[in-house]
């Protein structure tokens, strides 16, 4: 038996998981339209590669990754692109983001695709396949898997497969493990080989005995000798990657440190599953399992095409009429959706239909009396009461001193707070303020550099000019001296014209040159004006007229200011 470690704190909220595990995973009906966000992953937003009005096939790339940390977005079914514009997405801000809207044609016609045997191709090619298939972490962080499945210079000993699923209500990973354990583990094996990891530890909370049994059976069936399925105690937030790593390996990965540096990497079970589908069957990530629960008659897990509007999905589970809003994710860390039209994205593991009865509005917050219940449950071992105190009073420096950025925003503190203080909101506020400040100071640093360089450049130019001038003067003086000498000589030789001063001649020459240049400027025409339509000619005339007008006023205005 493997030793299990504990992390500090944690809470035991009611799980509400039974409702949605009674029925097997059902494919959701084809929706009337799909709203597919182009930014469904951590990193840079994918670039749209289709046009409005274009017909696309199922599995066709509609968003191409931009840069190293990005991922591919595909059409979830065949149909016509009806819009590429800003649509509401599942984000705390409630602000819109660029989405591709697709009207399905009902044919569900696949683009040509096929799987490969990963053992026959190089690791780089496997990673490329994952990137092309748009596989990202499906536990919620949506970090591109191809980037994660690369051990780089770190030696990875353990790969953790996260099936803990600790948030209340959510059962999508549970159902996936019960029904598709074999594919999950095959995917995990691929990821393990990519990482050269020695072992795979599958952590599943002990409130999912069926899933544990199914996974253990799959390990035996497929003879995965490096894998072990470990039942971990049910405590929120054991499904947090760092918490699960702690439970399974005893290693604590600090904030700001990435787990590969400590020899561990963590993947979600659903990620492993979709990795397998992508490699073995050539199916890009087009759909995912979503738990639809809460204020519905028939809570269950659906296999949902990405982009399916939440509204149409929840209706299929028998949404009750008093539903007033939807939460994406769990009740602890989920996002309240700005509208029910939002499309299901890769991060959407659960949709909770909410009603005032199910989630009553929060009680008014009372003052913090520093009872430290929050510190007792904090899995990051922080002092939430102090963080709150400093965040509340905008004392961000102190908040950072008290390790604000080690907070994982799990919400355990707010859950236990007897004064009902929305603690996490304060931490998020403080964090985003600090980030903004950091960006500002970086921008200021850049501006300072540029400004200093400019000063330096101006100084240098001035100096160069002065040097040149000095040289010229020297030369002129020498010339003058020479001329004077020559003149003297000439005067001595022949009587001369006293008006022929060399300086005056120079001045005259300059004036002549200027006049010539002016004439030239007035007569030269741009070369691309030979073949113009009358309309263009008219425009040009108009612009020229405006320029002339502006020029006049410009010279009038600018002259006194000009140096």
């Amino acid at each position: 038996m493997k030793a299990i470690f504990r992390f500090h704190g944690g809470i035991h909220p009611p799980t509400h998981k039974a409702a949605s595990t009674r029925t097997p995973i059902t494919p959701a009906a084809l929706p009337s339209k799909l709203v597919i966000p182009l930014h469904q992953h951590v990193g840079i937003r994918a670039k749209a590669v289709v046009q409005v009005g274009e017909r696309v096939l199922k599995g066709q790339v509609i968003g191409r990754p931009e840069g190293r940390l990005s991922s591919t977005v595909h059409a979830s079914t065949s149909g016509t692109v009806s819009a590429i514009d800003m649509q509401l997405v599942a984000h705390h801000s409630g602000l819109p983001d660029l989405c591709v809207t697709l009207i399905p044609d009902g044919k569900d016609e696949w683009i040509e695709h096929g799987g490969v045997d990963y053992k026959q191709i190089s690791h780089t090619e496997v990673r490329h396949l994952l990137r092309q298939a748009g596989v990202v972490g499906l536990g919620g962080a949506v970090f591109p898997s191809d980037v994660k499945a690369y051990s780089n210079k770190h030696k990875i000993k353990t790969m953790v497969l996260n099936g803990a699923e600790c948030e209340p209500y959510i059962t999508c990973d549970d159902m996936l493990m019960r029904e598709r354990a074999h594919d999950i583990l095959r995917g995990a094996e691929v990821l393990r080989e990519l990482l050269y990891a020695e072992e795979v530890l599958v952590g599943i909370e002990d409130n999912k005995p069926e899933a544990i049994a199914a996974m253990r059976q799959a390990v035996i069936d497929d003879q995965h000798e490096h894998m072990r399925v470990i039942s971990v105690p049910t405590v929120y937030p054991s499904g947090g990657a760092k918490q699960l790593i702690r439970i399974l390996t005893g290693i604590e990965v600090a904030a700001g440190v990435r787990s590969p540096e400590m020899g561990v990497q963590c993947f979600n079970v659903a990620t492993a599953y979709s990795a397998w589908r992508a490699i073995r069957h050539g199916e890009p990530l087009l759909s995912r399992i979503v738990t639809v629960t809460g204020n519905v008659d028939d809570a269950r897990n659906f296999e949902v095409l990405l982009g399916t509007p939440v509204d149409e999905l929840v209706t299929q589970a028998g949404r009750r009429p008093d539903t007033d809003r939807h939460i994406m994710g769990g009740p602890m860390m989920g996002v309240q959706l700005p509208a029910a039209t939002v499309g299901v994205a890769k991060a959407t593991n659960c949709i909770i239909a909410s009603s005032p009865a199910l989630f009553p509005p929060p009680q008014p917050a009372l003052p913090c009396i520093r009872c430290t219940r929050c510190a007792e449950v904090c899995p990051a071992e922080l002092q939430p009461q102090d963080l709150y105190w400093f965040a509340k009073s905008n004392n961000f420096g102190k908040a950072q001193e008290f390790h604000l950025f080690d907070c994982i925003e799990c919400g355990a503190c707010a859950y236990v707070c007897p004064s009902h203080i929305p603690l996490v909101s304060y931490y998020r506020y403080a964090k985003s303020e600090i980030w903004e400040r950091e960006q500002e100071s970086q921008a200021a640093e850049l501006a300072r550099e540029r400004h200093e360089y400019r000063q330096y450049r101006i100084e240098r130019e001035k100096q160069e000019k002065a040097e040149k001038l000095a040289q010229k003067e020297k030369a002129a003086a020498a010339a003058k001296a020479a001329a004077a000498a020559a003149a003297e000589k000439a005067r001595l030789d022949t009587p001369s014209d006293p008006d022929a001063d060399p300086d005056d001649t120079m001045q005259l020459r300059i004036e002549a040159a200027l006049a010539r240049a002016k004439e030239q400027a007035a007569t030269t025409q741009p070369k691309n004006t030979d073949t113009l339509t009358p309309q263009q000619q008219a425009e040009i005339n108009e612009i020229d007229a405006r320029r002339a007008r502006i020029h006049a006023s410009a010279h009038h205005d600018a002259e006194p200011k000009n140096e």
Partner: protein
Amino acid sequence: MLKVMLALIPGIALYVWYFGPAILVSITLASITALATEAAMLKLRDRPLKPFLSDNSALLTAWLLALSIPPLAPWWLVVVGTTFAISVSKHLYGGLGSNPFNPAMIGYAVLIISFPMHMTHWLTPHALGGVELTFAEQLGYIFNGALPRGLTLDAITMATALDTMKTQLHLGLSVSDIRDMPIYGRLAGQGSEMVALGFALGGIYLLLNRIITWHLPLAYLGALFATAGIFHLVDPAHYVTPLFHWFSGAAMIGAFFILTDPVTSPTTAKGKIIFALGAGILTYLIRAFGGFPDGMAFATLFMNICVPLIDAWTQPKVFGKKGDGK
């Protein structure tokens, strides 16, 4: 807070049993004053009344303050102390949760410094069989300052066990001589030792209910015991036993009810222990060598001052930053 007040009840009951019902008068008086002051301050600060009046924090302050001043104290003493505690040391700092000092102890400190005479006349326990006032006569004294039948105040009151010990030691008596005086019981002062026991019982109830943690009471009583023990071992004739210190004065109520105020005590486990150790040692030093009979209040206040620094310097290591990575 309600549970904390519940936990005070055994102590109060024993108080009434040994010293008569006068204490109930000052508790009621303090409670009314506290609620009125709280309401007035909330109104002035434009805050809603209901959530704050119903959190019982003002009542708790009132009870603790009433229990630490003599029951026969004139009514205005109670009112002044409570008003000061609630208005200055609590609401000027922003109300519940923001006050750096324990309001009840501030009230006590203000009273003992401003009105030292009134603060030393404690009731004689029934068991000593002195002259006893009826409840009506007590009321008359509290509100009118009138004593019946030409009695003097000294005839019906006495100094506390701690105070007597200190004065007599100064007069050159040894501890054992003093302990033979009738006001002393088995452990400490006659009657008051039982009251302290009552508070300890309440404290244990709080511990069992996880309202308070063991750190503060244990470290405080431990430090008091240890300091008193060392002095007692060195010179038993001049330094009284540690148990005497435990069961006299405000040690018990302080350990379980005053130090444990979460707002004015540190939040980290290590910090709590440092805080309580400091308070324990200071309490003893003030009791044994200082100018005031009991040091609990001043020790608490002094440690209150240190809380922000203790908190800042005892931050526990956070997840993943414990050095060895395990």
